[in-house]
């Protein structure tokens, strides 16, 4: 379970997140929506303990991710925005490296995630030589390693062509069982397809936290009404 309680984050004079609260339970796929600079990435980084909240509290499985970094990160798979990777490494080498750090020393697990994200033919390729779509899949494979209970995906389909987007979407749906997935995106139709719940943020505050509208196009309408 993830609890974000009255969290505020200030960078100098800029308030990136202002009194944000929400919870995420097992089995939920939360679509995290908001315009650029709304505070989506900052909130995700707060959940991971990568930054310290100015005020408020973040709990991951009832633990503070800053005070219990190692315990909480064992259960989280993270795909950061722009997906930074070690370009000089080969795909399998990189995934084995992440697996070792996560304590998943079994090469079979590496092969499993390689199969899951469908990058077997690029397993021996250097990451810097891969297309954006493949790189995104490598990042996702790294996040999936160790079968974490929580997946935090910051714009997992950004910059991908429609076919690649579809593949990533299906993969998220496939892996969602018994997990908490929080993913941010600008593509509203994507949220309609995958998410079970919506959290919409605007100017650092949560403007909507609830069920996804059932009607087709409902997410877009809701988003426009609250944000635009």
């Amino acid at each position, binding site marked *: 379970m993830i609890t974000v309680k009255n969290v505020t984050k200030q*960078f100098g004079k800029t308030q990136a997140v202002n009194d944000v609260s929400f919870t995420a339970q097992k089995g939920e796929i939360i679509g995290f929506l908001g315009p650029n600079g709304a505070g989506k990435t900052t909130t995700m*980084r707060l959940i*991971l*303990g*990568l*930054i*310290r909240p100015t005020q408020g509290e973040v709990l991951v499985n009832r633990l503070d991710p*800053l005070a219990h*970094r*190692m315990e909480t*990160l*064992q259960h*989280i798979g*993270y795909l*950061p925005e*722009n997906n*930074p*990777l*070690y370009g*000089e*490494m080969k795909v399998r080498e990189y995934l084995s*490296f*992440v697996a*070792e*750090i*996560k*304590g998943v020393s079994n090469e079979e697990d590496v092969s499993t995630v390689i199969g899951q994200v469908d990058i077997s033919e690029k397993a021996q390729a250097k990451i810097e030589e891969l297309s954006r779509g493949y790189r995104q899949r490598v990042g996702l494979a*790294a996040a999936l390693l160790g079968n974490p209970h929580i997946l935090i995906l910051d714009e997992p389909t950004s910059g991908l062509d429609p076919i690649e987007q579809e593949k990533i979407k299906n993969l998220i749906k496939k892996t969602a069982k018994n997990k908490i997935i929080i993913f941010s995106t600008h593509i509203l139709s994507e949220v309609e397809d995958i998410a079970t719940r919506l959290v919409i943020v605007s100017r650092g505050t949560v403007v909507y936290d609830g069920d996804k509208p059932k009607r087709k196009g409902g997410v877009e309408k809701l988003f426009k009404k609250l944000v635009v």
Partner: protein
Amino acid sequence: MKSLLKKELSFYLNNPLGYIVIILFAVFANFMFVKDIFVVGSASMRPFFDILPWLLMIFIPALTMRMISEEKRTNTMEVLLSLPVSETQIVVSKFIAVWILTLIGFVLTLGLPISMYVLTGQVGGRIYLPEVFVGYLGELLLAASFIAISLFYSSLTKNQILAFLASVITIFFLIIFSTDFVAGVLPPVLQSVLNYLSPIVQLSNFVKGVIDIRSIFYFLSFTALFLFLTVVDLERRN
């Protein structure tokens, strides 16, 4: 930590940069000593150990400058910090990787004491090998403290060149603290403090073949201090 160390080492060993820096170091170290060997007129490795800190002043920051700054610039540090690995493990693995590369550089200079041992044996006045080993031990401790300084600067900036320059300048001042030039300019009290702080003064006993516990403590605490400061910088969550 083994996997982190493997990653750091494989970057340099699968990349021309690592080989270029290590080989250049070995070439300069060997050449600087050999060019004066017949001028000095005595069979001793001391001139070599006196030159090494000046070479390390350049080569260690060159190897270390990218280690954290590049990870911050490309944001791979965020990936690392989102994995269950501590900041201390990240810093220590990077430190050990550069220290091993420095060790490889030193191994490439072993031809000097070996050839000197053989040559001096032919004229009946062999160089004293334990003195040479202690000299290398001192240089390795000195290298450790230089690596720690360079890692610290690498953590402070996303700009590798800036990290390199800051490291070189800091090490340069630490080296010249012990020179007569500084002694002539500064008041005696300050001079004695700076003299103690200078790694060259601490190294001098090792160069003479003497293992000084106080100097070992100095190098270890110096190294630990800068590694600690680097960890603190990574632990900042602003």
